């Protein structure tokens, strides 16, 4: 990312926030800001960055908004349906909070589907173009354009005022903001499909946006926890993919390739957040990631500590993947049979029963317990249930090893 691009991405939410706060019209303002960003991206490299880049963008976006509104209003008048909206309760005073936070709350509004929340957040807060978002999500640009404009219409018709949600709703709304950021990160990290570059950028973008939220809400433990979780997970990226593009399990990764700076930053964040109060799910997941990242070798992993953290996590989250990881931790502490017993309970959970990860974990635990023939069977079942070629290759190789 060059300097101008970085500057524009940083300014994008501030400019949109200023325009929407001043003039309203979130949907049209968002288009106007995109056009101003585009104008800057083409003019600044040639003409130089103006003395007050934020002011420049606000002026240009404001002018563009006036134009867009006029043609909209003229069209509406022709159709004889002037835009009217019923007056709702006034937006709460936003005092000295950054408009960026208000935008994040708007984009993660529960009226929107997750896919729409993600796309809108990347565009309105991240300052990414529709084409960039479409490329990262591997959908055609017109599809993404429609998704974004539908999301904006939705926000307009719901009459959401420009302001922070009322205090009573703030915690649950912040949880949806964090969930959107988490999904963006995972889209970039967990997926094995697509051009790697674009996907990696999504993770980087999620980290950048979460950093921003952490700067705005430094006392919030879950925000710090999510940022720590992302950093501690992303730290393993360099060791995570083998030369064939296949995923390397954590136990087999070359830990010298883990990013020590990211680990140090993530550990510091989570160590600072945990003592501050009841730990939420992101903090617990970050704490687990920190225990893994701090072990010099896989054998040195502090499994009893990880097991204790998964037990806390299970109490506050009903997620079958958490339950699956918990079973692994149980097996590492109390032996493979204890883990296999827990897997038996998961088989009746429709959300994960058909998932290759369940079969893959069972295969590993069976192999640990010395039951090679059943392990081989489970590896093959897992291979049949994943669509990823590198994963299939890995699982078939494991199955062969159990002959």
């Amino acid at each position, binding site marked *: 990312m060059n300097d101008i691009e970085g500057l524009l991405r940083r300014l994008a939410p501030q400019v949109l926030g200023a325009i929407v706060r001043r003039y*309203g019209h979130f949907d049209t303002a968002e288009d106007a800001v995109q056009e101003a960003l585009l104008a800057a991206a083409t003019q600044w490299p040639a003409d130089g960055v103006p003395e007050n880049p934020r002011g420049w963008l606000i002026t240009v976006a404001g002018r563009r908004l006036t134009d867009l*509104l*006029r043609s909209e209003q*003229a069209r509406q008048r022709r159709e004889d349906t*002037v835009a*009217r909206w019923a*007056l709702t309760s006034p937006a709460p005073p936003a005092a000295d909070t950054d408009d960026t936070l208000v935008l994040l709350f708007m984009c993660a509004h529960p009226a929107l589907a997750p896919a729409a929340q993600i796309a809108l957040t990347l565009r309105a807060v991240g300052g990414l173009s529709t084409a960039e978002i479409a490329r990262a999500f591997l959908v055609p640009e017109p599809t993404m354009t429609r998704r974004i404009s539908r999301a904006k219409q939705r926000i307009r018709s719901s009459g959401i005022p420009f302001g922070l949600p009322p205090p009573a709703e703030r915690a649950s709304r912040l949880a949806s903001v964090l969930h959107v950021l988490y999904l963006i990160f995972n889209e970039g990290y967990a997926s094995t499909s697509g051009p790697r570059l674009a996907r990696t950028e999504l993770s980087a973008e999620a980290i950048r946006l979460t950093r921003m939220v952490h700067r705005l809400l430094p006392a919030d433990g879950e925000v710090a926890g999510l940022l720590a979780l992302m950093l501690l997970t992303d730290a393993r990226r360099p060791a995570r993919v083998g030369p064939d593009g296949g995923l390397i399990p954590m136990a087999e990764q070359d830990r010298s390739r883990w990013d020590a700076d990211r680990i140090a930053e993530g550990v510091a964040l989570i160590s600072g957040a945990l003592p501050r109060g009841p730990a939420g799910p992101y903090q617990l997941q970050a704490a687990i990631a920190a225990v893994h990242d701090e072990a010099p070798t896989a054998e040195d992993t502090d499994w009893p500590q990880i097991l204790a953290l998964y037990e806390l996590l299970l109490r506050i989250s009903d997620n079958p993947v958490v339950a699956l990881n918990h079973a692994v931790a149980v097996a590492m502490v109390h032996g493979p049979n204890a883990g296999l017993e827990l897997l038996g309970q998961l088989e009746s959970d429709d959300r994960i029963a058909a998932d290759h990860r369940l079969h893959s974990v069972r295969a590993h635990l069976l192999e640990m317990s010395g039951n090679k023939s059943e392990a081989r069977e489970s590896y093959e079942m897992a291979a049949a249930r994943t669509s990823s070629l590198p994963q299939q290759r890995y699982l078939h190789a494991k199955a062969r090893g159990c002959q």
Partner: protein
Amino acid sequence: MKYMIMLYGSQQDYDMLSGKPSEQRPWTAEEQAAMNEFMMKWNQDLVDSGEFVDAQGLTAPAHARRIQLQNGVPVVTDGPYPETQEVLAGYNIVECASFDRATEIAARLVKTPHPADTELAREWFVDVRPVAESGADLDA
């Protein structure tokens, strides 16, 4: 005594000043600068004489909102003005000795420079109105 001097403009007048292509040719930068300089001097003279109270300009009419009652419910309309409608574009509040003095101040604006070959879509005017000093003034 305080007086409000009110200036009017339509969306079309805003366009002419902002250099947007329309039926009238847009003002050049020099023409624009001449007008700005005139307005600034007009304002500065009021500051110097101690008669200046406040002055504000309003953004383009496209940004206006109108609130009306509809079946007893307040309803907001965005952009309520047609493009050619004259609306308040800005005002000056002066504090001076008399209505005549305020009128004289406002009348200086007839000399506002504008390009010879451009014309407003309507007759040019400014309004001057005395500001009410107390509730009693409003009964008069």
